[in-house]
């Protein structure tokens, strides 16, 4: 039954206009970034490598698809979460708004099955959006700009990765990005279970993300202690896959914290939905 329910949820998601806002936004923004990089990208490369040119001779195609995809992945902090929230926040609240909770909950399926199918469908949507981002930024980037070495700048170091050593890192980075965006999706579904209109959960989810980011940014003792518990602290940890060597302990911790958030949000949503009186 759960597969049937997930298929139904996906049908509902992909028959709605709002679902395509994310794809359209990425479909417009990424080519614009490609165009900007095509016209001005060399200046950016020169800026990044300005300190190196005194000591090293840099050869090869540094303005390549990998570098551009790396830049675009930084949009994960706020922009992509917003596109995910647009759909995820509507998954439960949308049923309340439309009054379709009544036809759903009066069928011989458990509320747990309903929540589970919504979560799985939300995850599939998140994954598809991230894969679309990967195709648009990485695949199209490689087609337009070709491949080459990737320059990654850290706070105290610059790493240059050979082109044969990059693609697998991107695969893992996108896998991690899907996980972190699934946390955003889960949070939006949790808020969606509390109300009867999708606007509230969209605003709430984005507010939580922005507040957490601000809290993470303040370099104050008490906030530093709080930081490990905020999921936003780990959203950009995909960058770890471009370190050499990678800090596996750091990656494992990030994956655990993010997975933990998804599980907690799922349990909380299930509990709320089990207890919920359907009055819409």
């Amino acid at each position, binding site marked *: 039954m759960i597969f049937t329910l997930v298929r139904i949820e996906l049908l*509902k998601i992909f028959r709605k206009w709002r679902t395509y806002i994310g794809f359209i936004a990425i479909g417009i923004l990424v080519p614009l970034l490609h165009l900007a990089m095509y016209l001005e990208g060399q200046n950016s490369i020169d800026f990044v490598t300005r300190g190196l040119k005194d000591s090293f001779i840099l050869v090869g195609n540094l303005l390549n698809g990998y570098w551009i995809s790396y830049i675009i992945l930084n949009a994960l902090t706020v922009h992509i979460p917003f596109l995910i929230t647009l759909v995820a926040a509507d998954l439960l609240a949308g049923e309340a708004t439309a009054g379709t909770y009544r036809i759903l909950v009066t069928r011989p399926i458990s509320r747990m099955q309903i929540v589970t199918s919504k979560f799985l469908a939300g995850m599939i949507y998140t994954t598809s959006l991230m894969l679309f981002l990967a195709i648009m930024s990485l695949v199209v980037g490689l087609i337009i700009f070709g491949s080459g070495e990737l320059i990654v700048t850290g706070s105290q170091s610059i790493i240059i990765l050979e082109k044969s050593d990059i693609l697998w890192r991107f695969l893992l980075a996108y896998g991690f990005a899907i996980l972190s965006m699934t946390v955003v999706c889960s949070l939006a579904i949790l808020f969606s279970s509390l109300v009867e209109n999708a606007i509230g959960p969209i605003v709430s989810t984005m507010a939580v993300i922005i507040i957490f980011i601000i809290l993470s940014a303040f370099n104050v003792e008490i906030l530093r202690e709080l930081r490990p518990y905020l999921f936003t602290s780990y959203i950009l940890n995909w960058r770890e896959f471009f370190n050499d060597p990678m800090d596996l302990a750091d990656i494992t911790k990030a994956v655990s914290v993010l997975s933990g958030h998804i599980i907690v949000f799922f349990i909380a949503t299930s509990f709320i939905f089990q*207890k919920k009186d359907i009055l819409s």
Partner: protein
Amino acid sequence: MNAENNVIEINGLTKRFKEVLAVDELSFEVHSGDVFGFLGPNGAGKSTTIRMILSLIRPTSGTIKIFGKTLNENRKEILTNIGAIVEKPDFYLYLPAIKNLEILAKISGKEVSESRIMELLELVGLKDRAKSKVKTYSHGMKQRLGIAQTLLHNPQLIVLDEPTTGLDPQGMKEIRDLIIKLSKEEKKTIFLSSHILSEIELVANRMIIINKGSKIVEGEVNKLLNSNILKVTVEVDSSKAALKILQNTIWYNNIESITENKFSINIEQKVIPDLNKYLVENGIMVNALIPVRSLEDYFLSITSGAK
């Protein structure tokens, strides 16, 4: 009627929303094959009760048994055999009618064929619009689609909450005819909620009237209709003179709603000729004696009496 024949058994059902007591210790039974009228004015607690029967909301206390089994423990099994419209029929507006029915068929707990879906769309007169998105449907069409979705999985019990709301007279008649057909030909048990009493009067065999969450009366529609006490509207040349004549009779205390040439009196059917004779013999010109025995009047009288 023994308990085995009960399709629905409600005992001491109560629902409280914070300070508001929506349903208060409600108990009643619906028998197999009944067209059971569930009556009450707006805000009486009908929809809350239906939502509890369909597990949309949780009772504060009390028990619900359907098909002899408690709802809490046997929810899935029970819902497999119920088709329902709660308040208004809402669908996924961005999907065609046929797709809505296909989705609901898949989660109905029973095998529902494509041909069954088309058969139902034909039954409710929507076959030609099967592929149109529901957002293009009128209210009446949505209501008919709602009826189709209740029948998809051939349930034993059909719960219809205000099914004719917003329909034109022809649409109301079609729904009524369908209810009678489902009851008589397909032996379905139908739980029909309404505040339109004529609707219940025409189709139901048993009924309950509730107000402010409590039961006012429950029983067979015929018996309730055949109550001996009637409200008789008496049209006379002068109400003032007639009341003076009646002042010393046992009827006087049963007089109400007096106008210049008309008054109402609650009396037994068999004494109506005596009343007429008494008034005429005392010089009152009686123009008409109009007995009212409709369920609507009955309903209005007891719900207003309960206030």
